[in-house]
């Protein structure tokens, strides 16, 4: 029997593929703009206390009587305008799309996606926070997927890398651009902070990658569970080291980060991370990484330098986790050593295995699903952590490779577009 995902995917593809993606995004954009104007009125009319923050998901468990109102709200505010606009704009979008090269096509869609999310997010401060944390989560999950999925090892170091990236970038930003008690007055004018932030993030990521080198050198001589153990020790060492440096706050934590991680910044970094990782796994190196996972001796016989391939994949993971950690620190505005413990690693592992291994779209899907789940279960407070483990255990039992393990959601419009262009020179 085919499982439900295999059956659901073609259906989704047909439904989404019927209208071009661009027109759906334009529809969503219009719906978002309409929410700015009529959202408050409509939610008042439907007896809702406030605008439903994340699609009103938290209502499901806290006030089930409001579910019909929320469903009506979603229909009237989102689905109906979105569908109508998508329908109406489809012919126009189809005509314009033909003139796009794949690169322009992707860039235009990313800009549209950004506009949709930004417009939707600015309605409510909480939405923006959730979106930014979602971006950080996607970066972490996808980069961890490089090691646990494509490389086939088991690493739990993601919290440690985050910690290094977060602390390094926070210290640099506070030292450079904030008048702080410990680090003294700002070295550079604070107005430069947003421009320096990308470089600081890269330095944070590189710092994480350098510490990862210390882990990588001994652990890739052997196979098996060795990496799991070494990375476990690594997380403890990083946490304990940070706790012992009083200069950066020790166990009390570190704050005063300038508010430079706005939503557009996080969005750009998330797209960058996804783009590099997707390109990486489609490249020769990525194929070599998967070959090492499937059969190391065979890969070596095929002239793959297995050790080098493993180290590069691991360092890429460390770099992007470090960058994500830096973003996280500036989104939250406060970090302490215990926020980067093994619990954090377990959370990212949960998102990764929920979505599925060796799949970029799976990682994105897993992270989004996990966050939506957390939003539904938010009213349960503590019991949330009773339900999430049960759900993950069930997923593991019935789909041991995760929901989208070892397969990508193929976007038909993207591949079709590419093929068209590939054939174009032949016609000329």
């Amino acid at each position: 029997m085919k499982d439900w995902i295999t059956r659901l995917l073609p259906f989704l593809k047909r439904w989404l593929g019927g209208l071009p993606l661009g027109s759906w995004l334009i529809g969503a954009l219009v719906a978002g703009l309409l929410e700015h104007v009529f959202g408050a009125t409509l939610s008042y009319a439907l007896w809702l206390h406030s605008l439903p923050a994340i699609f009103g998901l938290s209502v499901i468990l806290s006030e089930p009587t409001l579910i019909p109102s929320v469903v009506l709200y979603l229909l009237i505010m989102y689905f109906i305008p979105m569908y109508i606009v998508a329908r109406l704009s489809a012919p126009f979008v189809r005509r314009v799309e033909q003139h796009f090269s794949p690169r322009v096509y992707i860039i235009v869609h990313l800009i549209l996606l950004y506009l949709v999310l930004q417009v939707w997010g600015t309605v409510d401060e909480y939405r923006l926070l959730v979106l930014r944390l979602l971006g950080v989560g996607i970066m972490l999950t996808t980069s961890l997927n490089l090691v646990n999925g494509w490389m086939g090892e088991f690493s739990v170091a993601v919290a440690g890398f985050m910690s290094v990236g977060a602390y390094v970038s926070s210290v640099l930003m506070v030292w450079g651009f904030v008048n702080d008690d410990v680090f003294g007055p700002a070295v550079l004018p604070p107005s430069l902070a947003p421009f320096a932030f990308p470089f600081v993030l890269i330095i944070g990521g590189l710092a994480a990658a350098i510490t990862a080198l210390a882990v990588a050198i001994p652990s890739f001589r052997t196979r098996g569970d060795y990496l799991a153990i070494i990375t476990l020790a690594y997380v403890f060492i990083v946490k304990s080291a940070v706790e012992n440096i009083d200069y950066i706050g020790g166990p009390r934590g570190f704050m005063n980060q300038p508010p430079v991680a706005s939503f557009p910044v996080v969005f750009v970094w998330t797209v960058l991370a996804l783009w590099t990782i997707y390109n990486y796994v489609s490249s020769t190196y990525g194929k070599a990484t998967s070959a090492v996972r499937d059969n190391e001796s065979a890969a070596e016989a095929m002239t793959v330098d297995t050790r080098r391939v493993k180290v590069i994949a691991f360092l890429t993971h460390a770099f992007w986790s470090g960058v994500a950690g830096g973003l996280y620190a500036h989104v939250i505005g406060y970090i302490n050593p215990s926020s980067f413990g093994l619990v954090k690693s377990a959370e990212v592992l949960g998102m990764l295995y929920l979505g599925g291994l060796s799949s970029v779209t799976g990682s994105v899907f897993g992270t989004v699903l996990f966050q939506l789940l957390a939003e539904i279960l938010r009213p349960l407070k503590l019991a949330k952590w009773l339900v999430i483990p049960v759900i993950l255990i069930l997923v593991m039992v019935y789909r041991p490779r995760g929901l989208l393990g070892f397969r990508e959601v193929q976007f038909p419009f993207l591949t079709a577009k590419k093929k068209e262009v590939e054939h174009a020179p032949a016609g000329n």
Partner: protein
Amino acid sequence: MGFLGQLLDPQQWFNALQWGSFYALIALGYSMVYSILMLFNFAHGDVFMVGAYIGFFVATGFLVLASAGIIPASGWLIFVLTLVLTMLLTSFVGMAVERVAYRPLRNAPRASAAITGLMVGIFLETGNLALLGASRRTFPSLIETKTFQIGSVYVTNIKILTIVLSLALMLALHLFVQKTKTGMAMRAMSYDYAAVPLMGVPMDRVIVLTFALGSALAGAAGVLFSMSYPVLEPYMGLLIGWKAFVAAILGGRGSILGAVIGGFLLGFIEILVAAAFVSTMRDLIAFSIVLLILTFRPYGLFGEEYSARLRI
């Protein structure tokens, strides 16, 4: 007193032996499961925590019975009863963990089983927190603490009890694994997992028994730990469990002797580091030493390369 002075101080040896006993008892559970199933039971630290709580309730129950005059009010009798009953009940917890988290995934990728183990651990912690609340419990003192002086060294009777009892349990486990037929089946399965079921060995029963034995030892560790450090909280198994896991690795994956030696070694490293340096540096230095040892002996002190093979 410098590091060398601490190293030669018998007072620290007793402390280290006591800490090492806890680590070794828990590490045995990791190692036994690993030797058969080739996977780490990441919920084991929380089984230890549940064991400590079970011990708390059992001990309290027996104290009530004793005050009602149903059983004689002797501290030692209650202690022995508590220990035996706790080990029994905790072994059921271990069997339940196996049934829920590991048996359905017997043929799945091992990483998936690691995730279910982690999730069972989180479930046990949160379940405890939700059921019993955030207030900490204090383990009743069953045996009156007495301090002996041997030369310049002060030792409490509980410390000696912990060390002696742990060693006795380890010896019992060793005899069980070496001398009984079930023990032979366990050894055979760790040697060749695929061939043993073909010889008519009931695989599931051996695996369940392995989990039960490991959890019983964790339960014993829970009772002994709470007698020395009587404050119980839901997250107490987290750090000590991870450290025992590292100890099991240090000794050599899947090796019973290795788990014992690794546990005591980690105990010694931690106590001596805490005594010689600042105590907040304990984890940092201890884990750096572990990392260094593993760099030169990747399979641990008593592990062999075949015990780290991948079973696909």
